[in-house]
């Protein structure tokens, strides 16, 4: 066994970025010395003090948001940060979605990406400073123009107040643009916050309630044609023969040809392209994956765990001695299946290539990669690729990958037409990339005082990071050949298989409790399925194993589930406090006869969350009536959006806990649409109460941390209701 010992605490530090999903941080700046122009039109007579703001002559304050809005409320959150210090109400700003530029990198990643519940914490100081500096310049300009000391002026929501007189910021932009700031302006103390910490309404709600918010699929460029791709049932298979004679003669169809991922059909409308696609007969090459079914995955993972031969992750202490001296030891296996993200907006992109220039319209989490990818497909300079961000109709990690942009670019290049590529729902459910399946085995030891002394945890399955890395490589190095990309991607897979556990694959499996003896082992078992990050990444399955096991241990130790968790989280004070607050609430809950309460807590994306699920079981069906969620995410920039993210995380997680499971049969995904891959609906949705604790630290993540505790909280309640300990997701009673 290859052994790499990293202390748990060091692991936690180094995994901060990997929790967001990236293996490496990298910059995608042009290598030429001069900075690229900002990717937006500067309004005549307006002032552009930096990449984030324009002040227009009519006093409109335009804010370019650098992070992708996929529902998590980031446009509201970021405009609140800059608006706080600029002294402009976020609801009064004209908010635009930024194109690609080095100024828009996520400080947490070093690239222009949105994920890992990182946006608010990463931009918390940066955007406030930008706002403060801009306001300072306006005040200095006003001071000169009005002939009064800056110290006698104050601001209020886009206006400078000079005694009784009130002047729009725009009055001073001519002077302001001649000034520059020498040192950063001071930031407001928290006690003076006007917008941060308030339940400001969402800046995007009216557009989204009136059908006027533009998503990628709504982009309509004159002369645009539509493309649908016929995809192999088994991942990555190539077409051996294609019979498209009858499809070609269907109305509106203009071209049918092979691209890297299947057979593309181009037509004058999406509907025509979809109808024609159904008439195409493809013989696909045979793939080794055809021998694989869901049962194969589970069997192969179990065999790997039994063999015990993996890569050692963060470990400390003496696990063997600790197990021997424990008064209670307990071992169990936990299963989590393949999942689809299924954002409501199916994947789509518009690509127009004209001469040596290109435009790309789509809503995605990682714009950084677009110019490089399209440049390599179209053989044009990356700096000639313009990216137009739209709202994302759900992200959840799915829009962190870019194969749809590559497909649209290939089709646009081959046809010379402006192309809107649209995936069907069936494409989305069947083709991934998927949340990997996992089999986890935990053996734990407890001493006779109820202290957790030993934690030996392993996980078998595919690795999350390398596949995503493979997709991004051509963007990083657009000039290198396909063979080199494959070589480097394979090297990274080999690296994770042989030397270092992919942090995204095991995060959350071992970090939360105080046990002095820990061993973490990762067994890479790769069946060549396309995999990627799925809301809360590794935590989406590790929390289920860990928090189920903790419940089982509490019971074995004769302790209640809250006391056991409190006793064993002394070294994690914020998690400990969240458990305490939630535990007190649970102790005071009265539930109807037949209802049972289950508890779980988990730390992810730097945030601590405890959840209590009120559950009943009738006629073999699990019903979740109410969920109480207690969290500490530090400073809640917008507490109402924090609550909405917990509600969303709980419901997304409940779909997975109660229904979620893709099944492989002969290497192909059996499910195809919402009839056989069901989503939680309103009539099944619990009441959700969210309690936000503010420990006064800087903000930590909220987009994902609400999800991990819900599956184990429900499973722990089901155990109380039925005596059945369900260790496989989705939860199904015997």
């Amino acid at each position: 066994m290859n052994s790499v010992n990293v202390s748990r605490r060091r692991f936690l530090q180094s995994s901060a970025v990997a929790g967001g999903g990236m293996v490496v941080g990298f910059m995608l700046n042009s290598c030429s010395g001069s900075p690229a122009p900002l990717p937006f039109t500067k309004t005549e007579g307006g002032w552009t003090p930096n990449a984030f703001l324009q002040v227009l002559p009519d006093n409109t304050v335009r804010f370019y948001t650098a992070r992708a809005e996929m529902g998590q409320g980031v446009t509201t959150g970021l405009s609140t940060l800059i608006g706080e210090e600029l002294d402009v109400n976020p609801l009064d700003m004209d908010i635009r979605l930024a194109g690609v530029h080095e100024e828009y990198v996520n400080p947490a990643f070093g690239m222009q990406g949105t994920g890992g519940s990182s946006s608010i914490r990463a931009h918390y100081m940066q955007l406030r400073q930008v706002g403060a500096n801009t306001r300072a310049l306006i005040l200095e300009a006003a001071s000169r123009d009005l002939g009064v000391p800056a110290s006698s002026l104050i601001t209020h929501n886009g206006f400078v107040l000079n005694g009784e007189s009130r002047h729009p910021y725009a009055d001073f932009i001519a002077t302001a643009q001649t000034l520059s700031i020498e040192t950063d302006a001071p930031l407001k103390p928290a006690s003076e916050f006007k917008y941060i910490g308030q339940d400001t309404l969402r800046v995007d709600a009216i557009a989204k309630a009136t059908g006027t918010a533009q998503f990628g699929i709504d982009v309509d460029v004159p002369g645009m044609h539509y493309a649908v791709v016929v995809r192999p049932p088994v991942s990555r298979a190539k077409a051996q023969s294609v019979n498209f004679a009858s499809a070609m003669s269907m109305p509106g169809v203009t071209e049918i040809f092979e691209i890297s991922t299947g057979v593309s059909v181009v037509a004058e409308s999406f509907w025509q392209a979809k109808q024609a696609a159904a008439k195409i007969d493809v013989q696909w090459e045979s793939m080794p994956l055809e021998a694989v079914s869901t049962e194969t995955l589970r069997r192969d993972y179990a065999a790997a765990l039994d063999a015990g031969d993996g890569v050692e992750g963060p470990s400390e202490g003496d696990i063997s001695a600790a197990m021997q001296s424990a008064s209670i030891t307990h071992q169990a296996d936990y299963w989590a299946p393949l999942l689809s993200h299924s954002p409501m907006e199916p994947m789509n992109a518009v690509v127009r290539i004209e001469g040596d220039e290109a435009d790309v319209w789509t809503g995605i989490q990682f714009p950084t990669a677009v110019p490089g990818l399209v440049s390599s497909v179209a053989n044009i300079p990356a700096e000639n690729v313009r990216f137009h961000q739209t709202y994302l109709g759900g992200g959840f990690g799915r829009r962190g990958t870019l194969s749809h942009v590559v497909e649209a670019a290939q089709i646009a290049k081959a046809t010379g037409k402006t192309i809107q590529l649209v995936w069907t729902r069936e494409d989305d459910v069947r083709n991934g990339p998927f949340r990997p399946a996992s089999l986890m085995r935990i053996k734990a030891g407890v001493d006779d005082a109820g202290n957790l002394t030993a934690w030996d945890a392993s996980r078998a399955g595919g690795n999350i990071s390398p596949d995503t890395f493979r997709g991004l490589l051509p963007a990083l190095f657009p000039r290198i050949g396909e063979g080199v990309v494959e070589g480097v991607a394979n090297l990274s897979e080999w690296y994770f298989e042989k030397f270092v556990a992919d942090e995204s694959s095991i995060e959350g499996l071992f970090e939360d409790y105080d046990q002095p003896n820990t061993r973490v082992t990762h067994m890479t078992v790769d069946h060549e399925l396309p995999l990627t990050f799925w809301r809360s990444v590794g935590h989406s399955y590790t929390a289920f194993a860990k928090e189920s096991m903790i419940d089982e241990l509490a019971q074995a130790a004769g302790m209640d589930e809250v006391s056991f968790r409190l006793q064993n989280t002394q070294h994690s004070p914020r998690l400990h406090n969240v458990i305490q607050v939630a535990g007190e609430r649970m102790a005071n809950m009265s539930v109807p006869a037949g209802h049972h309460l289950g508890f779980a807590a988990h730390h992810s994306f730097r945030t601590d969350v405890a959840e209590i699920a009120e559950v009943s079981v009738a006629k073999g069906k699990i019903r979740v009536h109410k969920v109480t969620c207690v969290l500490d995410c530090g400073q809640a920039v917008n507490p109402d959006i924090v609550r909405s993210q917990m509600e969303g995380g709980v419901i997304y997680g409940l779909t997975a806990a109660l229904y979620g499971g893709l099944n492989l049969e002969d290497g192909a995904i059996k499910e195809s649409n919402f009839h056989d891959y069901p989503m939680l609906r309103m009539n099944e949705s619990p009441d959700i109460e969210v309690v936000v604790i503010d420990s006064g630290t800087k903000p930590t993540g909220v987009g994902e941390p609400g999800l991990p505790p819900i599956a184990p909280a429900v499973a722990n309640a089901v155990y109380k209701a039925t005596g059945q300990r369900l260790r496989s997701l989705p939860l199904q009673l015997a």
Partner: protein
Amino acid sequence: MIQFMLNGQSVQTDADVNTPLLWVVRDQFKLKGSKFGCGAGLCGACTMHVNGAALKTCVTPIAAVANKSITTIEGLGTPEDLHPLQAAWHEHAVPQCGYCQSGQIMAAAALLDANPSPTADEIDAAMAGNICRCGCYPRIKRAIRSVSENALAYDAMTQTEGGS
């Protein structure tokens, strides 16, 4: 040639009679507020009103709406002149990604037109055909209740429940 009313205006299309209403409205009439989610009548993102009733238009052939009256989200209200449900969606901060919300609002509007004082179960039943992947259901419920004629009764109930 098929003729129908679209948001109060008489329109006609020469699209193939089997083309779903959704795509005629989106592609020919360029009203992009109604969304494609599943193409199989399973998610409700494409919901419009046909003669006042909520209908999943991704599986409704255009021939089936000849001479009927269609209302889309654009016909319900605009940013300058919000329908009460759209205003409630803003006030209750309902949307997250927002992609399903046109369909949600159209389903809710048809419910309240037919039944201005729905019970909680009636709201659930009327909205069960609309999937929201972001999990906005608790807020959708709250927003619908706030616009219903029995909003005060819901307020009283919420206070005694102490939440949700």
